[in-house]
């Protein structure tokens, strides 16, 4: 490492207010949480920020709590804790978290970091989109909430202003089955070739969706979700929890695939991604529907699962 000549300042705020002040005062400071993306860029000399803004010493970021019917997940809660503490209430997000990296990565990586990096392949994005999550961001000027569907603005670009930091993610607890699927070359340490998440919302009888790694940004398959909700309604399936007709499953898969805009790259071709998305959409729908049919969720009144 011949890096000593290159100056990078290290800012380590002990409180959230201090962090926001530092963010405003040093616009070139790169926020650093678990380091699983940022440190790779620094190790490989791909990035030399003016300063690193270490967010790991801020207690608020490491906490989660119920908040007006939602779960308010601090941006700095690690995947390991998310899996252990919130797997029941946020099953789709927890499933995605289990597929992140390795134990070492999950012990450090955070949902806030995933959002900050805003990679189209980030594992958290599809379940956040499917669940209708909101991202709470803040600056010294105040706080605002951005719906996940408006947060991703381009390849590795997000809606954060230069003086803002990600404070928390507000996620509705599951009101029905949620599933996540990801295609890669092995189970661990894989960047998604393509991923998909589905949320069946039994309270509103709507279907949430999220596509990963198959467009410039993570995106919902809104048309597919509307189609499925209407098809379930028309066939009386929300009430009966009866067997899903195969044409509905197949059409859902086609519409999910049609919502993607993938490219050819080192991890896979666009054609493969489109195919994989249709397969994942059919599979995750079938898993979720079987869970519903299994009686865990009474059709008349959904039941919240314990944390």
């Amino acid at each position, binding site marked *: *490492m011949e*890096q*000593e000549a*290159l*100056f*990078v*300042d*290290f800012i*380590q705020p002990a409180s959230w207010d201090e962090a926001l002040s530092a963010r405003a005062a040093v616009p070139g400071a790169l926020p*650093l949480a*678990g*380091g*699983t993306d940022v*440190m*790779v860029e*620094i*190790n*490989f000399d791909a990035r*030399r920020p003016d*300063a*690193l803004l*270490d967010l*790991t010493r801020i207690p608020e970021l*490491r906490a989660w709590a119920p908040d007006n019917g939602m779960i308010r997940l601090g941006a700095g809660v*690690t995947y*390991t*804790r998310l*899996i*252990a*503490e919130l797997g029941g209430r946020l099953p789709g997000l927890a499933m995605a978290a289990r597929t992140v*990296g*390795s*134990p*070492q*990565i999950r*012990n*450090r990586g955070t949902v806030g970091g995933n959002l900050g990096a805003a990679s189209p392949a980030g594992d958290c994005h599809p379940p956040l989109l499917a669940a209708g999550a909101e991202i709470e961001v803040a600056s010294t000027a105040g706080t605002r909430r951005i719906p996940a569907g408006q947060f991703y603005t381009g390849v590795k670009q997000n809606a954060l202003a230069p003086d803002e930091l990600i404070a928390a993610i507000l996620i509705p607890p599951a009101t029905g089955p949620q599933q996540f699927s990801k295609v890669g070359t092995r*189970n*661990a*340490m894989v960047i998604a070739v393509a991923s998909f998440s589905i949320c069946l919302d039994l309270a509103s009888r709507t279907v949430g969706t999220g596509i990963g790694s198959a467009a410039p940004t993570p995106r919902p398959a809104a048309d597919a979700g509307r189609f499925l909700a209407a098809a379930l309604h028309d066939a009386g399936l929300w009430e009966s929890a009866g067997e899903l007709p195969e044409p509905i499953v197949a059409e859902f898969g086609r519409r999910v695939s049609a919502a993607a805009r993938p490219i050819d790259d080192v991890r896979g071709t666009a054609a493969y991604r489109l195919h994989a998305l249709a397969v994942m959409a059919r599979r995750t729908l079938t898993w979720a529907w079987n869970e519903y049919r299994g009686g865990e969720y009474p059709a008349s009144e959904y039941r919240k699962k314990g944390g």
Partner: protein
Amino acid sequence: MRITATVNGEIMQADDVWEGESLLYLLRERMGLPGSKNACEQGECGSCTVYLEGALVCACLVAAGQAEGCSIGTVEGLASGAELHPVQEAFAEAGAVQCGFCTPGLLVAAHDLLTRHGQDQGQDRGQDRGQDRGQGPGQAGEPGRGRPSDPEIREALAGNLCRCTGYEQILAAVHLAADRMAADRMAGGAQ
């Protein structure tokens, strides 16, 4: 900047640490602890696995400044003087070491798995496991109290790459170590 941390129970200090430096560089080049290996520098291979505040991490992905004031455990801290830890003995006996480059990271990761299993057994409680612990017992079938199953071992070591052994001897070593550590706990259970 100056970094002070407790490494393997001993307070250590380094000056003139570059602000973008990793914990791995700090340990190897400034604190004289080259056991943790530098291979991929991107968290893919697990060769630099250490404990940070009781949690298993890739030292290459921790900024040195993030370790300020923290407790760090490295592979050098596993043995007691000349006496190897059961995990180390088992790796040597089972032939889980060929070129040896991945071994330090695998030892720390296996140590973490087996320590957690030992704690799930209801003994060895009261140790500081760090704030980011919280992984419960594995979901797969348990072949015995305090002994991880093959799928649990594969999952726990999924972040550690070995290009020589084909992993079979590593699995055998972890099973061997699990048996010995469980036996040690039984023998020490009256304490």
